[in-house]
């Protein structure tokens, strides 16, 4: 919706209403209303329709249900797939093999690389470089767009090779994979990742000339999953907060509460009744010490850009993660290629008794939680899914309010300037609106 810069200044029109925020995943709008200079209401309206995933899968077979849940979102389909499958396996007491876990993690990294590349190059960078989309950006900076597409491609190809395709991977099943990649395929992935290291730094290189806007500076609570191996990963079993507390992922229902708000088909989440942030920035703030190599070096060099109090730092944190995960995926693929068991069979699920399974992971845009309950016939009896966007919505709204108030204070009146600034802050969160609208309470 943001129009080209330099349009005629108008007197401030109240209220500000953006009916469709462009360059985000999903359909959402922003509404700000004022009394004089005072900001009354700031809402991030979610128009994306409800899809009732937890309700439509009740009574349905678990194998089919875990194939349906990833349809919640295309940008993080692999995140939903892996998290849902892990929850299902926990529910039926199935222990996947080490090889299966490694392959799933590489697949998940593929999703990170693809999703971060799409967000940074296609959705976010045009704001900073002054274009309305990546195509016009690409006409003048073909090298930037080429790097972004090359990263997107390798992320997508990892998911295609391991998961069968890069949106909605059907090869990822409870108990393992239908078909395993070959040694040669894993080596090719590793070689390609090695060749793309420079491109992985392109996003950060283009972002470092820009400063975070001080208007959205504010102390905040971050939550992130503690990496299972004490390095930096999206998998783990404990959630840590920047307040110093932690809780077991299994117990997320006790710590993260949800409520229905009138302006959104997505529920809003709170941690100890406080809004919180979950994002690449949260992971970095809590576990950035686990980074290594070039990512660690660059993160130290540009630490001023990685301020946990400012949501715009999330763009930088994603850019750092992109560098790290390209490297980690290369290492993991190389290792797995050398000790691949090509004939390892999928463990077929045998369901004999009822159970409940929980799984949390870090999706590209933050914490993702699944609880699945099955009966002894393998039918879903309850499901609960909380997506990252649902978790950070209250914090996002608080930041939009901060920005709107600061701009009012500064006397900024042009609704287009205000609107496009609000949109840029929304984009920094990398919201996944399709994701956000599928939350339910366990019964």
């Amino acid at each position, binding site marked *: 919706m*943001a129009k080209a810069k330099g349009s005629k200044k108008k007197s401030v029109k109240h209220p500000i209403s953006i009916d*469709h925020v*462009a*360059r*985000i*995943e*999903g*359909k959402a709008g922003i509404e700000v209303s004022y009394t004089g200079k005072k900001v009354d209401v700031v809402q991030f309206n979610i*128009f*994306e*329709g*409800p*899809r*009732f*995933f*937890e*309700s*439509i899968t*009740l009574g*349905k*077979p678990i194998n*089919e249900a875990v*194939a*349906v849940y990833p*349809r*919640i*979102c*295309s*940008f993080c*389909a692999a995140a939903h797939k892996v998290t849902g499958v892990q929850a299902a396996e926990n529910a039926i007491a199935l222990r996947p093999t080490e090889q299966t876990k490694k392959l799933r993690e590489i697949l998940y990294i593929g999703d990170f690389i693809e999703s971060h590349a*799409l967000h940074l190059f*296609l*959705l976010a960078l*045009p704001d900073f470089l002054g274009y*309305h*989309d*990546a*195509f016009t950006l*690409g006409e003048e900076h073909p090298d930037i*767009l080429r790097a972004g*597409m090359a990263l*997107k491609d390798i992320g*997508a190809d990892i998911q295609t090779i391991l998961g*069968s395709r890069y*949106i*909605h991977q*059907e*090869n990822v099943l409870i108990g393992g994979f*239908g078909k395993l990649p070959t040694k040669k395929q894993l080596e090719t992935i590793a070689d390609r990742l090695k060749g793309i290291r420079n491109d992985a730094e392109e996003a950060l290189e283009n972002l470092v000339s820009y400063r975070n806007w001080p208007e959205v500076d504010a102390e905040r609570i971050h939550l992130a999953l503690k990496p299972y191996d004490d390095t930096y990963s999206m998998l783990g079993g404990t959630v840590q907060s920047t307040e110093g507390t932690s809780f077991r992922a299994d117990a997320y229902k006790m710590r993260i509460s949800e*409520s*229905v*708000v*009138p*302006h959104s*088909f997505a*529920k809003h989440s709170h941690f100890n009744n406080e809004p919180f942030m979950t994002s690449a920035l949260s992971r970095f703030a809590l576990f950035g010490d686990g980074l290594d190599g070039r990512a660690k070096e660059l993160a130290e060099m540009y630490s001023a850009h990685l301020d946990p109090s400012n949501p715009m730092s999330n763009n930088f944190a994603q850019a750092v993660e992109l560098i790290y995960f390209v490297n980690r995926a290369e290492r993991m693929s190389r290792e797995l290629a050398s000790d691949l068991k090509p004939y390892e069979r999928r463990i077929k699920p045998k369901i004999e008794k009822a159970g409940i399974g929980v799984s949390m992971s870090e999706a590209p845009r933050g914490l993702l939680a699944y609880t699945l309950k099955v009966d002894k016939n393998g039918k879903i009896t309850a499901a609960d899914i909380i997506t990252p966007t649902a978790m950070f919505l209250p914090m996002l709204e608080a930041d939009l309010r901060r920005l709107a108030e600061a701009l009012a204070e500064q006397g900024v009146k042009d609704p287009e300037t205000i609107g*496009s600034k609000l949109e840029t802050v929304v984009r920094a969160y990398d919201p996944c609106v*399709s994701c956000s609208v599928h*939350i*339910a309470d366990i019964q």
Partner: protein
Amino acid sequence: MAIIEECGDICRPKIGVYALTSCYGCQLKLATVQKIMEIVQAVEIESFYMISSASRMGSDVDVAFVEGSVSTEKDLEELKEIREHSRILVALGACAVNGGVQSWAEGDKDYKKLYAEVYGEGKITMQGRQATPVSDHVKVDYFLPGCPPEEDELMYFISAFLFGTFPEPKDYPVCAECRLAGNSCILIEKGEPCLGPVTTAGCKARCLSHNVPCIGCRGPVPHGTAWFDSLAKLFKEKGFDRDYIRDRMKIFGAHDENLEPMLDKIFGGSK
């Protein structure tokens, strides 16, 4: 509509890409096809909110691609507006074509029940609806199935419109492509619940090539050309019950009026 003949090299066809309620995967697929930069040179993109701030509703387009099911009153209003302003409307992907996975409980639970199970007593000012395919509400000129659609089909559709010809829909099941791919039959050999016999082809039997039974993401085969005699009837023989096969077929085929008649054909008699 022969866009190229009409326009010569003076004008470029206007394209709009719109979303109702969905996962945005079809648009993502469209935005990331290998030749996307060539496509954006050949057409004029009037609206594509997911990737461009220069998008708007209500401008006239030659071809509108619509992703998603109609799941809110706002979706319905927007769909009607899109139809009014487009010469050709393409239903893009499983949600637009078949109502999508969000229709899985179609016939079992109405909107009120779905709402109560998810939002409880909570009140939301916007009005939702039971998910329905786009063709329940407006005339659809072409259907491009898949969850998500295939890249080669997207390219074929776009080039067909550019060259003034018409894309030809596929009316044969996945089994045909599975045979060409040289797979052994996962239904016959392994007794897996493969929906290949009743699912529209076009994926080149990707899942079967991964030893994964077809989940039916491309939707029911049109014109009653499913492979009943040879294969679909095996569901019963392999020990799957009617309810299980119905559940599986409904993931992507809940709005298919042939669903129960097909189950009758497979399991004999009506329930």
